[in-house]
């Protein structure tokens, strides 16, 4: 491609139709709304955590069966650990997103995608751990109380949901890794 050909190509490029220009006040409002949704999500997660902790305390005070108390303790500890690890990564990402350099440094984008990969990996491992402990817990319950069809159906639905979640996390993790590879080209 010689200079003349490229100049023609450049003119062709620069003569393409423009998109209609957005109204900046609407774009800014939408951006602020997205920030609010993020904060609401964080509040919902914290409320869920408080609810699980409250359930654990009241169950312990009411002298719930040992195996059930162990299960609730596991769920609480599991939720707290995941929340702390995920929040640390999210806070780091938020710090990067607020940084002035976000618009001018590609390194920040690499850091953000690495944080995202960390969170998908965390979700995958955490969900597998939950599935395994859930299975062990149910085997013990069946061994102690016998087999109940209704419970088994509910648990099968729950287990399917968890396995679908793992599949979703694996796909998202794979896509995030592909994006990181593209950025590192």
């Amino acid at each position, binding site marked *: 491609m010689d200079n003349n050909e490229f100049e023609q190509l450049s003119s062709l490029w620069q003569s393409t139709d423009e998109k209609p220009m957005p109204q900046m006040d609407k774009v800014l409002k939408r951006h602020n709304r997205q920030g609010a949704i993020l904060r609401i999500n964080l509040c919902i997660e914290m409320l869920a955590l408080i609810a699980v902790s409250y359930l654990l305390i009241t169950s312990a005070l009411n002298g719930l069966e040992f195996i059930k108390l162990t299960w609730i303790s596991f769920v609480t500890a599991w939720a707290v650990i995941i929340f702390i690890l995920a929040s640390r990564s999210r806070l780091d990402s938020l710090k990067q997103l607020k940084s002035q350099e976000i618009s001018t440094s*590609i390194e920040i984008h690499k850091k953000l995608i690495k944080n995202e990969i960390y969170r998908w990996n965390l979700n995958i491992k955490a969900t597998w751990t939950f599935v395994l402990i859930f299975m062990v817990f149910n085997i013990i319950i069946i061994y102690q109380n016998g087999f109940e069809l209704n419970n088994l159906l509910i648990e099968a639905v729950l287990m399917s949901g968890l396995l679908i979640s793992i599949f979703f996390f694996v796909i998202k993790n794979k896509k995030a890794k592909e994006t990181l590879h593209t950025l590192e080209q």
Partner: protein
Amino acid sequence: MVNITKDTEKEELIAQFWPQISRAAAGYENRPALSDELAQEMALSVWRSLEGFNDQCSLSTYIYRVIHNTAIDHIRRHSKISEDELDEAMLCESPTPEKNTLQAQRQKQLIVAVNQLPLSLRQVMLLKLEDLNNIEMSEVLGISEANVGVRLHRAKEQLSKLLAGMN
């Protein structure tokens, strides 16, 4: 030192750079809905970054840098799927009467070909198509001039092949 803090000044600058923003969005994203969204994201990033401009480079270089990094952010969040199918769909799109010209068809082919370039080559190609020189491109992308030269040479070669394959 230039300080751009007034909303009216920011809006004027965005209007001034809107053609470049619009074309860069099309060059990075050929899915129409996402391309429009990317153009808005680019405008928003420019708006938010203008206060951080402190004469470390020319204003246009700074704005190009913001635009192209927003595209990277977009790629991070919307990984591309079924690009080939979309490219096919875009080329086969039935032309509207006002677009029914050879020029419009060539423009579409150019957009599709640019979108098919690997990211590192697409970045330099998009800037070159906007008539930036190698020094300006190295400032926008944060790479050496020599690297810009090598990438540009490869980008031109690949673009020629892609365009030849479409004719």
